[in-house]
């Protein structure tokens, strides 16, 4: 099978849309609520999950035939934990402020349902290249939802995008305008409602496919 065959393309694009880990499988919600109050940590989190899912998929797929079936979850966890530690240290070294904002949620990628789900459901049965594509696809599908939610929350909650002020100063009530930032957007509760909206739109658009 060639590297970029149709089947492999479907493995990659499936999780981006019709099999999206958040919008369709509703996995990995906890971190999606916790890290999306601003756009930058949301993007960093999405990329971290993408990298970890892709490489843990590859590693597990390479050693899948030698893993004893009874202890496979432990082996998977060790691989994921090692990768999470590497990513966490890289973040601390190069984007320290974002890693502080993400706090424990980078470490908690170990328990992310998307990761365990892909390892169990895909990497244990498929070759390394397919697993790699599947990991990238799922990670990016997760990241896409995070970016949408992070964008809305930062814009309406803080009036900024990437820390740059978008809403003009004069519009605020302190300056005599009418506008106030929505404090609810900075809370995780609103992130849940926004994720619900994403799922709603997604289902409305893909009505035929779901039937």
């Amino acid at each position, binding site marked *: 099978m060639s590297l970029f065959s149709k089947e492999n393309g479907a493995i990659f694009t499936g999780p981006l849309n019709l099999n999206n880990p958040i919008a369709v499988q509703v996995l990995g919600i906890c971190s999606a609520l916790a890290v999306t109050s601003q756009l930058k940590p949301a993007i960093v989190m999405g990329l971290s999950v993408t990298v970890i899912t892709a490489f843990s998929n590859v590693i597990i797929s390479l050693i899948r035939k030698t893993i004893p079936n009874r202890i496979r979850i432990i082996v998977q966890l060790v691989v994921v934990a090692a990768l999470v530690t590497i990513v966490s240290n890289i973040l601390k070294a190069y984007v320290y402020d974002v890693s502080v904002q993400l706090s424990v949620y980078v470490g908690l990628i170990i328990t992310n349902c998307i990761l365990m789900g892909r390892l169990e459901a895909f990497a244990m049965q498929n070759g390394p290249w397919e697993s790699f594509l599947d990991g990238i696809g799922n990670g990016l599908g997760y990241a896409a939802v995070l970016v949408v939610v992070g964008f809305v929350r930062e814009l309406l909650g803080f009036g900024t995008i990437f820390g740059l002020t978008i809403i003009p100063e004069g519009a605020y009530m302190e300056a005599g305008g009418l506008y*106030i930032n*929505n404090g*609810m957007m900075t809370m995780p509760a609103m992130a849940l409602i926004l994720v619900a909206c994403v799922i709603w739109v997604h289902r409305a658009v893909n009505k035929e496919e779901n039937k």
Partner: protein
Amino acid sequence: MKPTFTEGGKLSAFGSLFDAMETFFYVPNETAKVRGAQIHDAIDSKRSIFFVIIALIPAILFGMWNIGYQHSLAVGCQDATIWCNFLYGLAVILPKIVVSYAVGLGIEIAVAQWKKEEVHEGFFVTGMLIPLIVPVNCPLWIIALATAFSVIFAKEVFGGTGMNIFNPALVTRAFLFFAYPSMMSGDKVWVNANYMDSINGTIDGYSAATPLGQLAAGEAVTAAPMDTIIGTIPGSIGETSFVAIMIGACILIWAGIASWKIILSTFVGGAVMAYFLRYGDAETLNFPWWEQLTVGGFAFGAVFMATDPVTAPRTEAGKWIFGLLIGAMAIIIRVLNPGYPEGMMLAILLMNVFAPLIDYCFVQSNINKRAKRAAIK
């Protein structure tokens, strides 16, 4: 005239609107079936909603006058007449009512048309409650946003009127409270903003803090206990007057709309908790324990919010538990949580969650009791 509006008719796009108007003005044809056990009868909710609106009238009228009265106090205008104060309040509150109805009913009619269902009339009450539970300075666009949020996410996603878990008016207030805290609490929001621009300016030493706000800040209450009963204190538009709310409560109980059990048990729960849980020295704070029941939104919440038949328990014994816990919880939040001077909203929303559980427990225990009785025979 009707065929024009039914499916395929010329004006079918306005079918929901027509249907709403038709049942609003005429009595619908359905009545409760005589057979079978039914928890509630088929009285059209427009009839009960009509009485709730009537019961709200004293609170609305008093709220209008109080807006003007507080404004006159703030600008130091002693000789303002009752009518002057009243008209001033009317001018302030009317846009809020219009916005709340326009947004809420607009969404409801759109959804009904889209799903090809009847328009439900529950919003007539919600739309009137929303302006009454916000501070007078709340900007209109914020009210519109919060109303839209609550109608969509607290009501329509659950299936519309009668299906909601939470009281939509309270969800509106909760959204405002968490999203725009600077608009919902503090000293600046309770008296109309225009006094800032008026020629006189505010008089020295004028404070527009609510009694609960003063208590949360550890200060003595300036309002006399009698003022909190009559209602001449700053506060959300409809909540200040204990007397006006009690007139409403009498109308509701007389008409059989609201459960007197819920109202009474909420007050009992609140009174018991207030007696044991105090802010501190009653003398220095000028705050006797019973005043907990007359300040803030306690009375308004107990009479108009907790009794919402959709979100309260249906079992009679459950209503007692529901009310007692609301009253107690509201006082606990007020006294023990320094972040929230007022606890009524959160207490009712919390108990809304537990209402189905309370019902389940009582229905189940009743079933068990009867099963045992049947087994003995």
